[in-house]
């Protein structure tokens, strides 16, 4: 006869199994199976129009080594990770510093809402709006610069030379608004007693922020870095809509990340590349690259001393 504790364990295990199995099945169907299929397709030359697939082994992977557009899309993704990461985390921290120092809760909520609003708008609408703002001839930025006598600073923001910066500014604008909510939630968890102790030691607001808030936001910062790294490779709507020159043009190669380039290779817009097999190989590389980067980031953060409270 089973003891009460053994019965409980048995029942508990069955409950866990009942809870996990459906999720695991969903995960296998919607994650593992598509990944496995993509891996399979990546070994074929296949347009996706018919079931005719030609097995080419690692041919698609070999082709990538000499594909300039693929190389530039990987490089762009890495640039988004690095420059975007520094700007987004930096600006978000500065906003966190400013907003946490407000005494009025209403003001805090108001600023937070204003910053978050872009995240509630469709990426395509925002990307088009940003394109209008940066339009060379009649955009808000150049017009304003001219109006205040700084016309020499006006640039062709959507040209090859500046378009990466223009796209990055759009992504920074959107993501700062998102991460600020996460950072402020993290900052709100920090016990007041720590700030009071710092005040007793005569610490300034900035000192309190750098020695109390930032170290204790370590987990939040790590999560945001990981999220941003993944986004840099797979963010699609903003870049696709912003970088397109209109009239069916593909987004400029100067701003394409791997996800956008992959889509264009698989389906194209006006340019009917239609290489689903090759795009599947790119998807495999995307998966491996993101996994590697996330591992590196996690290791880096692990090497930083964790502060508990």
């Amino acid at each position, binding site marked *: 006869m089973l003891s009460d504790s053994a019965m409980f364990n048995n029942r508990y295990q069955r409950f866990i199994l009942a809870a996990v199995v459906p999720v695991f099945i969903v995960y296998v169907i919607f994650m593992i199976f598509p990944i496995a299929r993509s891996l399979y397709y990546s070994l074929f030359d296949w347009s996706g*129009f018919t079931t005719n697939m030609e097995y080419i082994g690692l041919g698609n992977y070999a082709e990538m080594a000499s594909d300039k557009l693929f190389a530039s899309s990987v490089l762009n993704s890495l640039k988004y990770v690095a420059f975007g990461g520094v700007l987004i985390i930096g600006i978000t921290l500065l906003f966190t510093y400013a907003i946490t120092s407000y005494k009025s809760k209403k003001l805090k909520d108001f600023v937070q809402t204003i910053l978050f609003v872009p995240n509630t708008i469709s990426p395509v609408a925002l990307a088009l709006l940003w394109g209008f703002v940066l339009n060379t001839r009649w955009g808000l930025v150049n017009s304003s610069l001219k109006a205040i006598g700084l016309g020499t600073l006006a640039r062709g923001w959507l040209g090859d030379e*500046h*378009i990466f910066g223009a796209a990055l500014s759009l992504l920074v604008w959107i993501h700062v608004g998102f991460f600020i909510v996460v950072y402020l939630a993290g900052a709100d968890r920090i016990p007041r007693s720590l700030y009071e102790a710092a005040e007793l030691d005569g610490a300034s607001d900035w000192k309190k922020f750098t020695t109390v808030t930032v170290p204790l936001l370590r987990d939040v910062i790590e999560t945001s870095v990981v999220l941003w790294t993944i986004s840099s490779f797979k963010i699609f709507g903003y870049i696709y809509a912003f970088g397109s020159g209109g*009239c*069916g043009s*593909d987004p400029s190669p100067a701003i394409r990340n791997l996800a956008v380039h992959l889509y*264009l290779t698989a389906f194209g817009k*006006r340019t009917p590349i239609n290489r689903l097999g090759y795009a599947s190989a790119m998807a495999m590389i995307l998966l491996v690259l993101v996994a590697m980067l996330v591992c590196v980031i996690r290791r880096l953060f692990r090497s930083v001393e964790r502060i508990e409270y």
Partner: protein
Amino acid sequence: MYKKAMVVTLLLALCVVPFTSCGAAAKPTISYWSMWNKGEPQQRVIERAIADFEKEYGVKVDVKWTGRDVTNAIKPRLLAGENIDLVDQSAEELYGGVAANGISSRMNDVLEMQIPHEGKKVKDVIGRETYDAYVRKDGSLYIIPYSVVSAGFWYNKVLFRELNIEPPTTWEQFLSVAGKLRKAGLDPLAFGLQTEVYRGYIPYHTAMRILGPGSLNAAASDRTGKLFEDPRWVEVGNILYAFSKKGKNIFMEGYESSVYPAPQMDWIMDRAGMFFCGSWIPVETRPAAGPDFEYGCFPFPVFKGQNGDPTAIECSPFGFGVLKNAKNEGLAKEFVAFFLQKKYAESWVNDTMNMTPRKDVPAPKELRDIRLSLSKAKTTFRKDDGVQADYPQWYAAVYLPVLGDVLSGNINGTQFARQMRDETVKFWAHRK
């Protein structure tokens, strides 16, 4: 008695219903996927024709108004085994997306079909120039056009009259016109480098004039790059460089970062004197153009000692393609012939401000100049000389970036020809 009658009636009904439903199921249904969206004037003309066709032929047309991404939209359906009979799109996208994958049915037989109620064959009614460039070497044709698109230099006739400018025919005259426009305080040519269709227009038209139709297509597929060693490619590069700000500065200010629709708006507002574009431009700009704006269009200028036909002009139609092994292939082709009736062609012209391939239906007044150039043309060529559809990866990875460099003035004609050769060789080195 009453009960018996009821049972008999029910039994009879049970016997009859399956036959009735068989009859209903037997009514053929054409599956048609269209590039037009619900509500567009083009969609409304086709919808009217569908309604008439259904009534006259006793069939059903199951139409999906899919929008411009129609060739991508049909992919998963075809893979899932769904029957699709008819698709419409631009010739380039039909050839690059559908015909290139071997799933298009030859449309040559449609040319021999009678147009209903007219007693004439399709081939006798539509101009050969509207599809000629799409007949493959083996004689196969995979599209029947219902709308014709060409391209040229657009200008405001009122403005040209005011400035006493005649539309040029030679490169020298063109440069003189550009100078006059500049002197009058206008940018000579509206242009946006970041919009692919704009970026491509001038280069392939220059190449068609200097080397002739098919030259770019052949060079794109030449794995050795030797075709780009022809000195006339340097000449092409020199002309392209001349358009740039470092050459003869013909493009409008800020063109390197300009995107659709800014250039065409600059042109319509008379800030720029000319605009090179497809014949769809009056449709897009009419609402913004004032009532005094008179659309004029002249073909790409000719160069001294050019190889090609000086009358050659682009003709890239929109049309129907029927899918190979479609269940209702014959019926779908009948619909194609049905839609080419004069009444629908007239609606196409009047309601959508586009040209029809029918020879007996005049173009709208905005498109008369370009229609005249088309009628005079001894040869026609495909948009981008077909490289976007036939070699799409080369187009994206080699052609567009090198064009960006020369049109920005970063490289000259000699460097252009060398880069085209080198990049083409590198591109094909690792591909089939």
